[in-house]
Each structure stands twice: as structure tokens, then as C-alpha cells.
């Protein structure tokens, strides 16, 4: 490709170099295909399904809608980094225990969205959970066990507050 770029992204606390990239690559594409972080998924590439959700400077964002080369200088957190070593996520085991995972394709995006919700609103009502996660489509579970998982985390955090 003639229009190639080199730049640096900050992902999961590390500086990562990107070289020989085509300018039109999305952040989702670069995370997956250039940085080897396959956890974020592409299911629509239109920002409709939330499978590609990452945190950019603390905000939940669809990485399929971000031009990778424009995300330099921002702190990007993916599913691979949402629970740093030594600080395991309580959201991840809750999803497994509650039966909130079937095929698992929507799961990384949902975990990111759940983290973002609970960071902002530690004790959400069921309606608040539904609204905050309404940007994440799941085709397998019918959402019931996912809501249960998020509620379990909220209850668990209450206990340790």
C-alpha cells in the first residue's frame, strides 16, 4: 500500500509501535492485526453492536469507529488489559458463574461496558444496567444472565466497600 504510516499507541499501559500501516485502518483493525490483541471483536464495523468496545481515556468507545492513527496520545484499554496482573476483575468471573457466556463473541465488549458502568455507577438499578448495556448486542443469551452477572458484581462490591 502506498499510503503507509508509522505511529505509536498507548495500549494497556504500554507504548506500542505501529509501522507500515495504511492510514485508513480502524483502531479495531490495528489492535487485532498489528498489535496481536485479538480480544476485541468486529461484528458490524458500524458502531451498532458494541463487540469492539474499548476504553479510550476512560470512555467506552467503539474501536471500529476510531481511526487508529488519530488515537495516538490517548490511553487505550482493551479486554486484555481491563484486569491488570495482580488486580483480577470481579466482572469476568461473575460472567462465567452467572452463565452469561454462550458463544462469547459479545463477551469482551460487554465486560468493557460493565466495567465502565460500574465505575461510574456502582449500584445501578436494573433499568440503569439495561440502558448502559443497550449498546452491546448479544444474540445467544437473551441478556437475562448478563443482567444477573452485573447485579452480582454490584452486590459483591457493596460488601467490600
Amino acid at each position, binding site marked *: 500500500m502506498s499510503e503507509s504510516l508509522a505511529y505509536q499507541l498507548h495500549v494497556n499501559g504500554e507504548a506500542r509501535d505501529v509501522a507500515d500501516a495504511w492510514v485508513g485502518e480502524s483502531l479495531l483493525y490495528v489492535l487485532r492485526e498489528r498489535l496481536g490483541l485479538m480480544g476485541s471483536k468486529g*461484528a458490524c464495523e458500524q458502531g*451498532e453492536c458494541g463487540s469492539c468496545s474499548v476504553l479510550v481515556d476512560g470512555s467506552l468507545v467503539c474501536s471500529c469507529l476510531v481511526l487508529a492513527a488519530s488515537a495516538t496520545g490517548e490511553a487505550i484499554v482493551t479486554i486484555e488489559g481491563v484486569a491488570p496482573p495482580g488486580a483480577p476483575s470481579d466482572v469476568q468471573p461473575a460472567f462465567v458463574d452467572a452463565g452469561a457466556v454462550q458463544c462469547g*463473541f459479545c463477551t469482551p465488549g460487554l465486560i468493557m461496558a460493565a466495567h465502565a458502568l460500574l465505575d461510574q455507577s456502582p449500584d445501578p438499578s436494573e433499568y440503569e444496567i439495561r*440502558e448502559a448495556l443497550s449498546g452491546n448486542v448479544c444474540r445467544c443469551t*437473551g441478556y437475562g*444472565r448478563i443482567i444477573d452477572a452485573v447485579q452480582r458484581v454490584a452486590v459483591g462490591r457493596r460488601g467490600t466497600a
Partner: protein
Amino acid sequence: MSSPVIEVPTRGTVVGGRLGDSATRPDGVEKVQGAFAFSGDLSADGFLWGATLRSPHPHARITGIDLSAAWKISGVEAIITADDVPGKATYGLISQDQPVFARDVVRYVGEPVAAVAADHPETCRRALAAIVVHYEVLPALIDPERAIDGSHPPIHPDGNVIRHQRIVCGDPTLTGDVVVEGDYELGMQDQAFLGLEAALAVPDPGGAGVELFIATQWLHEDRHQIAACLGLPDDAVRLTLGGVGGAFGAREDISLQVHTCLLALRTGRPVRIAYNREESFLGHVHRHPARIHMRHHATADGRIVTIEARFLLDGGAYASTSSAVLINAVTHTQGPYRCPNALVDGYAVRTNNLPCGAMRGFGVVQACFAHESQMDKLAAACGLDPVEVRLRNAMATGDRLITGQVIESVAPVERCIRETAELPLPDEPVGGHDDDPMRLPGGAGLTADRSHIRRGIGWGVAIKNLMYSEGFDDFSTARCRVADGVATIKFATSEVGQGFVTIAGQIARSVLGVDHVVLEPIDTSIGSAGSTSASRQTWMSGGAVDGACRLVREQLFGLVGAQHDIDPLRLAIDGTDVVDTMGDLRVAVAEVTAGRELDATFEHHHRPTEDLDENGQGNCHTAFAFVAHRAVVDVDPELGLVKVVQIATAQDVGRALNPLSVLGQIEGGIAQGVGLAVMEEIIQVDGRVRNPNFTDYLLPTMLDMPVVVATLVEEPEPMAPLGAKGVGEPPTISSTPAVVAAIRDAIGKDLVRVPVRPSDIVF
């Protein structure tokens, strides 16, 4: 604040676990970490990207293809068309009528015409845009009625009627005191699995074979079709299951498999193809749109005397499994009700619309919407309520289908209805306890007026066949090895998210008394497991794993018996030990199997089934499951907005091997049923797809999902190897008519089409 009321006891999940436990998934940790490899996550050194060029026309002659401009683009390594298919030019599940690449004619918008391999997806896009295909547009056959009346010339050498089946049962001239009829229509639903089509093909050096990593529903059937098109023997094509991001029927047919292999063999390099969402909408089969006329004759007290019906399923451009979908539809005309007389005419036809095939429910969704709509009309005509009319006609074990087949399965229809009726109605008034406008139909749109909202209640009850029919022997294979107290299980069963990998371990632990189970990679190095469809894997692949484990257990007991001079028939598994049921011996399985390996492979077959004769008579189905749904909806009649508030259900499951997994299938299936009822439809105009994206193909979100209140009817099925019936399809079948019935109840108007659109409610 309310939480979903769960009647299904699933609290207290366990890791590992035996039959009956709500065991957590063995791949769950990987999946929540983002470490689980879906087929689109797989790569290989030196790989190329592949992409597909598709027809923009529903029907056209190809008069020329010019590849020269595409070849000039730097980074393009291969371009292939129909001329480059070395083996069989066509493929297909029942008849091989579908070309790998179109030659001379394209028959639907999206039909593959060529494919490229290049160094970057963007190079691929530019190459596809540079390929010039000269088309001569032909008149498109769009209206399925014209496929039957002969007014449109054949659009395929196999003709425009894929299958016609009649059913004549008893004396269909008999009538009753009451007659109700209707013309019902279902739009085209899409499976919309999230894990987009993706494959990795790695060619053998010298090109004598290829390895394919693929997300699919049936490895061996794929392999057979792929090998034929590649002109290779089956065993030169090795398939490994890449992680599957949902299926729901859309992965039963070949989509990108042959293309990926062809490009790999042509370039001598690994090739990855990954569809985008728009391409996915065009690239796989969909649920058959249907037009169904039904007429029920009944006695004054609401008992069915005769049903007349006509089914017209639009199969689109290629046959796929339309033949089998039609048979499912027509043989389920009567629903879970006694019906002594019937006359049914069913057609599956070919048009230039998108090809249709398997989607969860497989023809029975269509029949159920019609028969449940009819049952409500019958209730109204007889002055009965919807529950009473269904109880009065409810089938039981020993009754017959209109095909003459006796229902030998456990058939607790009455129980499903009664137990659903006993589940509590939502205690929330319209708008919720806190009168929150966000809880009204339309939610955040804040357009509904609480004083206008009407609440309705509606019912749907279904029968669904399990496993394959009409003489098809869809067996499954599994291998069990035990060494040093560890069981290793091998199968080719496609795990698509439904949780077979979970119960496989539960079966092994229960039968063998081991805690540690290892699952080997899912690939074609063992015999076929059949398709992950037709609600069949728990029964068939569960039966295969159970059978293989039992054979190993026999070997185990034989060993212990010989070692301790005890008749092996006295031995049993207790915890992780082998015990003598008539003595004191207790020895750990791990100890008995230390330093040795026990090994067995088992094929599980279900009993044979028959073809249908020209009157649709024959024992064509294997077994059946039943379910009831009750829906509560709130409707704004002026705006046509619907909020599905609650769905209650009692489902006939035989035995819940993993209650948490069963609940997952129930809630997930209900979501798809709700979707078909109120929002999901692929809209085609003159063969062109108007909404191949998630903006305009509406999927239920967490805000759309109703509360689900579920209870399980567990009467163990004697024909099933573990007493358990399949559970995947029933939830999506009668939930749709229940929602529509609830909307009718709310607005006092008839509705005859799904999905119900706001305009259907308002005008």
C-alpha cells in the same frame, strides 16, 4: 427495583460438575478474558487476505469478466472465477445446485462471481472494485406465486418448484359447527450471529491437500462438499473447528469455505477470508418467508375436526434445505393438538430472492404462527378463552400427527400449558411502580402517553420435532480414553455457544467417576457428529459421549473384577471410586487406571425414520418436544409502539442435564422469538436488500428484552439416551405467536403478519 424472577433453580453453579449440576463452561474463563480463539482470530505466517465479488443484480446473464485492471493493482496475488474450480462446480446440502462461482448467470443479489487474494483487506477491496463484470439484466422472479403458476420461465435447470408435498389425513371433507380461517405471512428473519463468517485455509506443500479452520455447524458435511469442489478426496481436506460466534442455522450451508481453500491452493499460501456484516447478510441463508392459508373446522365446543392448509415457502435462488424445511412446516400444521382429518398442500419454491435455509425452528416457526393464530380465532368463535381451547385439544403421548405417525415421545402438552398459566403475571403496572416514562413503549423516545397504553396477554404452544427426518441417519461419534484418572473425550460436535462442551464433561464425570476431563480439539480426525441443529446434539452427541464412556466403564469394571475376583456386574461408580455394591471393595478410579489407558469409540444412532408417501403419510420424524409461552405486552395504539413486558414459559425438557444452560437456551430463544414478532425482517424490494446492516435490521437489545419467567417440565424421555430432550428450538417457536396474540389482545384488532410493524397496529 425488580429482578427477573427465576423459577428454574440455577443458583449455585459449580466448576466441573456432573449431570444435573449447573456446571460452568470449561471455555468460560478464556472467553471472558478475550483469549478464546474464534475462527476470525486465527492466522498463519505469510498469509494473504481473500475477498469475494458479488452480483449486484437479482437475475442477469454474465456476458464477460475483465480482470485486467484488477491484476494491475500492486499486492494482488490471485483472482479466481468459475473457470478456476477444479472439481464439482456446484455444492449444496440436499441437491448440489449452487455454483461455487456463478458461470453465465447470477440468480440473486450477492451471488459470488469471483474472489481475490491480496496483501491487505484494502488491496482486496480495490481489486474487487477494479474487476469489470458485464451483465445483461434479466427479468427477476420475485413473487413466489409465480414460481408455481408457471408464468415465469425456469430460473434454474432444476426448475422453479423445489418441492411440493401434500398431506391427506382421514376424511378432510368432514366439517364442524364452526369454521375459522386466515391468511398469514412471515417476513424473512436473519440468524444475525455475531461472529462474522471467517476462515483460515492452509495449503499442503505441493497442493495435494488443505487444512481449513472454520466456524461451522457440521464439519464432515462441509468437508465432503469442499473436497468435491476442490477435486480432492475427503481425507485430503482436514477441517478443524475454529471458535464459533453463534450459528442458529446460518452455518449449515457452505459460504466461504471453498473460496478460501481455492485461494490458498492457488497461491500456495495461507489465506484468511472475513466477511463484513453487509456481506454476511448476503452470504448466508435466511429463514424462509412464508404465506400460509389455514382453515380450521371444529365442533361448537372447540374441538378440531379438520384442518385445511396451504403453505408457500420462498426458498430463494438455491435449494439449500428448503425441501426439509417444507416437510417440517407441513407436518406440524396441526400444532400440539389432536386433529383427525387434514388436507395440506405445501410448496417450497425458487425465486431470485436471497437463498433461504436453516434457521432455529426450521419451518415449524412458520407453521406455529399460523396454527396458534388459528387457535385464538377458534377460541373467539366458540366463546372459549385461549387457554381452554388449547387444553381441550391438547395432544398426549399416543395421539397421531396428520402424517399418521403416533407420538411416542413424552408429550406433556397439558402440563406445559397449566404450569405456564400458574407462573405469576408481572406485578408492575404500565410504566412500572415508579411511573417511569422510560418504561413505556418506545422508552427513551418519550413519545408514549401512559393513559393511552393498553396491556395485552397472549398465548402460544408448540410441538417441535427433534433430530433429522425422512430416513436421514444423522448419527454422532465420540471417543473416550481414560488414563491415570483423567478422561479425554474426542468429538467433532460443533460447539456454537450452546454448551455441548460443558455437558460432555458432565457426562464423562458422571459415568466414569473422574473429576478431570480433557476435551480434544474438534476436528475431522474422528467420525461425524452430525449437525449442530435440529435441537439434536444433547441427544445424539450426548448419546455418543455417554456410549463411549460406558464402554470404557465396562472395561474398567472388567479390570477391577478380574483383579479382585468379583463379578463386574456388581460394580458401580461412587464419587471417584469403583465400589462393589454387594461387598466392601472400594478402589479409586485413578488407582485402577494408573499407568494404563482404556479406550473406546462409539457411534450413536437414533431409530430409523421413513419417507412420506404422496399423501404425506409416514413415520418421518424421530422424536418431539413441547413448550408453552404466555406473553404480556404494553402497546401504544396511536404510535404502534410495543413493549414486551414478560414472557412466561413451561418447557418440556425431559431432564435438565445443566439447568443454567437450559435457561440460557430458553432466554436466548425467546429473544429471537420476540425479534421475529416485533422487529426483525430482511426487507427486499425487487430482489435488492434494503437493510443489510444492524442499523436497519433491528435486533433486540437489553432494553427490548422482556423479563422471562421459566419453569421446566421434567418427565424423562425413555427414547433419549440421557432422558434429556433437545431444548434449543422450542423457545423461539411459540414465543412469536404469543407476543402477537398479546398485541391483538391489547388493541382488539387482528394481525396476520410478523414482524408486526407500527403501521400494522395503527392503521
